[in-house]
């Protein structure tokens, strides 16, 4: 049970799709101008990730991995189809998105209207394919865990786009230098937010030895840079504070 909870929080905060691996940046930047649309897209991403990651896990386990075909018979045990995984995953995602769209339209028209145009767009969102590819490269062991991983990374993405949309709604009232306005400042804010999210890195390192062993080589860099981190963070907070002051005024 504990490993489920651990993976869930890890995929939301530590391995956050947007801030740690930059997946789904395109739609993240394009659809984050208003909170309401951001919520729609975020919900659609959670939904699709929760469906496609377990399906692709099954495909990976019973079709693509080296030796995965052994359930067909001993003579198939040597086959290694892993080079096909990109094409299989993307085909699954495209069809699942289409399927989800049809099902949602039929059984939940209200939800369909609110997700609307976002569903077809999701097929080409790197966060979705990235979810499946990371699921494969991190060798998630069971179907249940892959479901948790899908939902967790979806929620992480949702949180990220919600936060940036809220900030972008406010930042319209502040005096950003002309050339930075729009895209430029969004990039820099995302960078600062990513630095903030890095502080979650230490959250799950305690406990079992295996996790510690894995974390130590990575942890070296952040520890060194903690000082700068906090500095940046306080600056970030300060600027947010001044911004809110301006808005109030």
């Amino acid at each position, binding site marked *: 049970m504990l490993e489920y909870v651990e993976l869930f929080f890890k995929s939301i905060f530590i391995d956050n799709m947007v801030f740690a691996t930059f997946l789904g940046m395109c739609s993240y930047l394009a659809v984050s101008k208003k909170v309401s649309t951001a919520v729609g897209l975020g919900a659609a991403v959670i939904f699709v990730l929760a469906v496609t990651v377990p399906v692709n896990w099954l495909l990976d386990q019973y079709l693509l991995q080296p030796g995965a075909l052994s359930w067909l018979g001993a003579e198939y045990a040597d086959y290694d189809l892993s080079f096909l995984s990109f094409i299989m995953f993307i085909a699954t995602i495209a069809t699942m998105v289409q399927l989800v769209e049809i099902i949602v339209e039929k059984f939940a028209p209200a939800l369909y209207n609110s997700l609307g145009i976002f569903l077809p767009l999701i097929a080409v969102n790197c966060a979705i394919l990235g979810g499946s590819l990371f699921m494969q490269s991190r060798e998630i062991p069971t179907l249940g865990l892959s479901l948790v991983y899908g939902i967790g990374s979806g929620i992480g993405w949702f949180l990220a786009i919600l936060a940036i949309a809220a900030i972008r709604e406010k930042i319209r009232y502040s005096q950003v230098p002309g050339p930075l306005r729009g895209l430029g400042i969004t*990039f820099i804010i*995302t960078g600062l937010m990513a630095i903030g999210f890095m502080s979650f890195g230490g959250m799950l390192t305690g406990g079992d030895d295996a996790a510690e062993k894995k974390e130590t080589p990575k942890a070296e860099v952040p520890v060194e840079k903690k000082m700068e981190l906090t500095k940046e963070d306080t600056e970030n907070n300060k600027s947010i504070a001044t911004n809110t002051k301006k808005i109030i005024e």
Partner: protein
Amino acid sequence: MGLLSKKDAKLITDPLADNNPITIQVLGICSALAITAELKASIVMSISVLFVLGVGNVVISLMRNIIPSKIRIIVQLIVVAALVIIVDQVLKAFAYELSKTLSVFVGLIITNCIIMGRFEAFALGNGPWRSFLDGIGNALGYAVILIIVGFFRELLGSGTLLGFKVLGDPIEKTGLYAIGYENNGFMLLSPMALIVVGIIIWVQRSRNTALIED
């Protein structure tokens, strides 16, 4: 440029600056940020995208009249996926270490918005030769940003370029390190990629004020 008419040449030069896929069209950000901690990885990634986008644009352009518009996204995805598999296998065969560094990001070329964006916006409506030029142009525009970001991140982060210690040796204190220079390890962390791109956008829009958003 005897080979290219003025209009064709514009297809290549435009995306390099004023219509850059990353800083202006906001396409293909994901991979641009994740793999730019080293210059070498950025260059390999650029070449991979150059290949996929150039060839993919031609293929889609040749098929543009026979693809039913309802399933065009799936057709496009399959074409890209096939090309990316080629790239991935080549990398695994000839540059195994590097393919480990790039990890899933080679696979993510499939959903790189630059590729889908150019297919949709250009290859579906233009002939193969023009589509090829457009693909090359946009991939070069992408490459320029990747290489700039990779250059600064590797130089400031680890004091090397393509693995060569251009600033001297940090352990033996030669070169710049002799006078107390330190590497900024912060540049190697992923958030700095975002901030470097933000600064590139800032510089570019300061030079060309027509690009400023309101």
